[in-house]
């Protein structure tokens, strides 16, 4: 019987290209993040539980808007935005887990660049967000929700910018919490609902007192939800959409800046 030996076949090749190319690194990180999602697709429902509950139990209470239009036409885009926000904010919990278990540390000691570790993870958010949007639209279509494919595509693009930015912030939070789950969840939960309610995803803020409307206008999600409602309805109002793109891009830039700084400072 021969003892298996641990040979060094890899040695000669290693000095070729060990990490370092950002696009390749980003793809590698993104694919790694998606593997568990693809193996257990049910996980995309995690972020959808609350929006689906609202769609089932809250939407029927809404009065139909004029012209025989289903109230879903107004409500669904808000739930799509909510799903994107919930999904992107909880995504950092994966990193929290990996910090605790040690796999994040292993990746930090690999030649994959720090930037790719953050960007790849953040970009991965787009995939579950797409699937979730399609599920919500498919579920609501039979109940009078009018599907406008072009508008939905445009709406999803705006949401993707937003989700990647929020995802980066969520990872920055996970890094700041240094793997302490309670800290991560406390901050995430504390911020989530004010942002959602201020954006008017459940109720319009038209009749709100002035101070509340100001806070709402300062919330990037408000502008995004406003545009999503138009886009999902097949309308493309230039100014509203421009505001939404600006808000989403702002969140994206700020999120990446904060996220990259956090990841860079994790060792060197």
């Amino acid at each position, binding site marked *: 019987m021969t*003892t*298996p*030996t*641990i*040979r*060094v*076949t*890899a*040695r000669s*090749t*290693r*000095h*070729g*290209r*060990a*990490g*370092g190319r950002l696009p390749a*690194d980003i793809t*590698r990180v993104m*694919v*790694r993040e998606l*593997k*568990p999602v693809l*193996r*257990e697709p049910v996980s995309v429902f995690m972020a959808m539980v609350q929006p689906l509950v609202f769609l089932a139990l809250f939407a029927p209470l809404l009065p139909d808007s004029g012209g025989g239009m289903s109230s879903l036409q107004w409500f669904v885009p808000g739930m799509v935005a909510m799903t994107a926000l919930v999904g992107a904010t909880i995504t950092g919990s*994966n990193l929290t*887990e*990996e910090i*605790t*278990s*040690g*796999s994040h*540390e*292993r990746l*930090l*000691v*690999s*030649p*994959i*660049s720090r930037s790719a570790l953050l960007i790849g993870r953040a970009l991965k958010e787009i995939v579950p967000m797409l699937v979730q949007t399609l599920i919500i639209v498919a579920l609501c279509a039979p109940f009078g929700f009018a599907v406008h494919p072009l508008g939905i595509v445009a709406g999803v693009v705006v949401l993707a910018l937003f989700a990647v930015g929020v995802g980066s912030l969520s990872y920055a939070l996970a890094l700041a919490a240094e793997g302490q789950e309670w800290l991560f969840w406390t901050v995430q939960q504390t911020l989530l609902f004010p942002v959602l309610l201020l954006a008017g995803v459940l109720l319009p803020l038209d009749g709100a007192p002035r101070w509340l409307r100001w806070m709402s206008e300062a919330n990037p999600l408000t502008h995004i939800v406003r545009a999503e409602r138009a886009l999902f309805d097949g309308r493309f109002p230039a100014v509203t959409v421009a505001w939404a793109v600006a808000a989403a891009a702002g969140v994206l830039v700020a999120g990446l800046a904060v996220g990259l700084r956090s990841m860079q400072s994790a*060792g*060197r």
Partner: protein
Amino acid sequence: MTTHRTPHDAPAIEATGLTRTFRAKNATVTAVDGLDLTVRTGEMVAFLGPNGAGKSTTLRMLTTLLPPTSGAARIGGFDVAREGRRVRGVIGYVGQGNGAGHWHHGRDELVGQARAHGMTTAQARARVDELTDALELDGVLDRKVATLSGGQRRRLDVALGLMHAPDVLFLDEPSTGLDPQNRANMQEQIRRMHRDSGATVVLTTHYLEEADALAERVVVIDHGRVIADDSARALKSGLGDRVTLDVASGDAPAVAARLAALAGHAPERSRDGRTLHARVPDGRAHVARLLADLAADGIVADGVTVVAPTLDDVFLSLTGRSLRDGARAASGSSPRLEEVAA
């Protein structure tokens, strides 16, 4: 960028004045305190020391996870603080935690690790097969990591560290948390890997037996400093064997004199005066003669034991504290002051 570097002529590891401090509640804690160390290519070195001695902090600096507060370290000629990426290209690291994500499959993680190090997918697959045999990972790699046993996960961790055949492999407490059987297997696998690959291996451990069994060289670390650095045998032989004689209390002074002559210092006596201990260089060779001399004096010992020193004795003699938790450290009423022969 420095040019014309010749990393392969450089020592595998070279640290000078390596220091790391942490701030904790207005106090500065020095975890690693001016550590100097050189490890030649191909050596297998164990960092031995109690918990909190600074072993892992040292390892985290050497693997670019933690920037040094001051001092410098080079791995294969690359500076850990300024050339982190290049250092990461030539090292493997098995941390205290699990390298594979709990929601992932081991095979995906192994291939991903190899790809990150610039290997092709075909090379990665071939390497996975090699390591599957060597580390007994059959049936382990296509399951979710969360479902694996502790021993399986640890072998997978080591495989992740070995995928790209690193020049320098760091193992942070590789066998902690394993049962004795798995620990013995792990040690055998590390030994074989070192023999077959020629890689430089640095491991931390607080298991004395592990340092003893694995390393050609033991670096004893305490309070963030290297307090001894030699082969386990040399460290221990400097200490001498522990010779214990049980004698009638009337004979004790005469026996003590004989023992002192051999040991070079006065023996310790038990409270009842009937048991004498001393560290005797090469005690096993001398004890027969000692008994014969005593017999010539008309003294017959009731009992004799000769115990070879352990690395714990080495640590005890260096620091006055035992590496083993509890019993021995606590029972010594005063620190025993035994000299290590120079």
